[in-house]
């Protein structure tokens, strides 16, 4: 039986091995739009979740809020910081989804969870293709950035959707690699 630990190792191995770089930059916004749409569907599905949807222990999730005034400044001065923030947040989410998958019994939701997990992995690849520095997840499981705690799967996936719509999307759409390509 696949445990969370094994999943973690797998995910780490994936992220380590990954695809050979350099990748061609993935700048098409429709790629992320599709992921956002699927995340929204998963969030809507979680509203009907009845069993095992309340978590035993709260899970750490990234902050999703974006203050454009601050963000624009940060985009100019510290672009790498934003990438780090996004990548660590994705990692946290992946962790949380793996944890949730264990506790949920419904098979339909399992497929959605697996889909979300693979989407997160794909987004990581997209970020890597845009020549952002590689993210190494912390060995101890804690991240430097601020986190939030959620206690239900619905909240988790709400955060998941907001994170993709907000920070991830801003990062990708304002990536320098894409800006150089398009005029």
């Amino acid at each position: 039986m696949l445990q969370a630990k094994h999943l973690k190792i797998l995910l780490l191995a994936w992220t380590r091995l990954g695809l050979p770089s350099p990748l061609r930059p993935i700048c098409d916004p429709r790629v992320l739009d599709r992921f956002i749409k699927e995340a929204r569907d998963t969030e809507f599905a979680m509203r009907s979740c009845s069993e095992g949807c309340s978590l035993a222990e709260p899970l750490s999730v990234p902050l999703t809020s974006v203050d454009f005034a601050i963000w624009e400044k940060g985009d100019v001065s510290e672009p790498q910081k934003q990438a780090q923030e996004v990548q660590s947040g994705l990692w946290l989410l992946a962790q949380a989804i793996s944890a949730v998958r264990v506790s949920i019994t419904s098979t339909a939701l399992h497929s959605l969870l697996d889909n979300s997990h693979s989407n997160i992995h794909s987004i990581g690849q997209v970020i890597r293709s845009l020549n952002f520095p590689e993210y190494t997840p912390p060995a101890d499981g804690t991240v430097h950035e601020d986190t939030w705690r959620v206690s239900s799967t619905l909240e988790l996936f709400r955060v998941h959707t907001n994170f993709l719509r907000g920070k991830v999307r801003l990062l990708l759409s304002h990536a320098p690699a894409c800006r150089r390509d398009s005029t």
Partner: protein
Amino acid sequence: MNPRSPPPTGSVSVECGKLQYSSHNWRGTQQRAVMCVCVCVCERERERETYLPRRRALCGGCGGSRALDSGGRCVCFSGTMSPVRALRRCVFLLLVCVRSVCALDSKASLLVAVEPEDPKCFAEGMRDLTCFWEEEGSRSPDDYAFTYMYQETNEESSKCALTAQSVGGSKTRYICRLPSVQHFVPLDVSVFQDGRLIYNRNLLIDHVFLLDPPANVTVTQTGEQEQLRVCWLPPALMDMENSMMYEVEYAPTGSHMGKRESVRARSEIILHSLQPDTRYNIRVRAKPDGLSYSGYWTAWAPWVSMTTPPAEMDLLILALCVVISLILILLSLTLLLSYRRFLLKKVWPVIPSPENKFDGLFSVYGGNFHEWLGVGNRGFWWSPTFLLVEESPSPLEVLSEAGFTAPVPVHPMPFKALGLSKKEVEEDERTGGQDSVLMGRRKGKAHPHWVLEQLQSLDQPSVPCCELHTLEPSDTYVSLNYRSQQDSGAMSPLADISEESLPLQVLFESPGTPTSFSDLESVTYSSGSGEISSQSSLEYPYGAWPLKGPSYISMTVTDSGISTDYSHMSWGTTGLGDLAMAYTNEYKNKVPAPRLPPHGHTVYSYY
């Protein structure tokens, strides 16, 4: 009254008192006077001339009555004079109105209709949020408390400063403008009235966008038929350009049936299938597409008009039509020409001509049947008595049964001629009947009673059949042998004609000049074909002639018309052309060939 024109006679100069405006307790009511004018006092109260507010004015005729000398009067109008009041208010608004206030008014009214929850919040840009609610009465905003809190922060909820605005008379609108906002995170909003919670709402700021309408909407012709291009500017917000969807409404001027088209992520659209040469009104509105950002439809942009290009006749189509019509005309002409004979026949039917039955009747004798029968000698034959006696003019069947003595050797005649002639004989029998008194022509008119003699002779008891085989040269009989009569001189024209034309000439010569049967055998005619027929006719009495009554007189005559069919008519070229021409008037179908073919073709080939 036009100030420039000279005052009409009888006009009175009046002076209104001090003209007073605003803050005037007019007629004891609290209404504020909006406009005061100087008015003439006329004899009749109703007829009043009003002037623009001037203290001094010329008072002309009051309609019909006379202006009084007592002077003008100042008349003030109250606020119920709506156009003026509206104008003043608008001026005030223009001067005082701050952009946000004005915009808020329109947007608030838009939102009130769409959003059911309170407080109603909307974001106009990426860094603001405006929340408001409307209530009856006019309470001070201090009675209310507006608190908000973001989900991800552990801080206490923040408070927002409220401003009040009177709306539509009795209502008051309380507005909160957040100084800074955070997107992609739930916001919790609460409204308290006198410490009591009245509204609570949880919303995402990036889901409540209500932007300005698209700016700079331009409509141009594309150069194609029935098309117009509509362009506009997308909202100048960061990150929003790719997340917008637009709706374009267009309708012909004056029509109320507008059509709508949706556009995503592009800020121009080409409208298709429009009516040509029509003026269209077009307007646009926008909304975030709902994926990353969401919100409400903006207000409609102002109408923009443009006329579609007029419908033009495509040159290619015109050329094609011309070519096709030309082709059709050519085809019809070709058909007409190729079938003109057929068509002429249908339109002008052929009048059958008996020309081919009577050889030479028309060509040689010019239609004179008498001459044709016997060169003028047999005129009597057509005397009425004969006509009465005989019923049908054609096939003559005359058989003389009186005293055939000299047997005539039976010649092996060409069978076809025989066969044919047999047919003719039968025909003759049918038609001839008992009339067969036509004895052919007779030479001259010297024997008018010749026929009577014959009749009498036939009354005698019939001769047994066998005895009929003999023919006496002395008896009258019809034979086609006119050899003795052959006169090269006189007959030369006739020689060219078929012998049928003169079949009976021989027979009616004087008995003194009988023709010998021996001549029959060697009958030769200039027209060789006649030989056949003539000889065949002679066969009849010796052959299979059916027996008839003794009173039956039948004369063997081969009708020229019948036997002509298989005989070659060798037409000489002498005079035929002229003769042929003579009949062109009668027989239109006849080929009016001025020159007949040189080698004796049958002329009448068109039957």
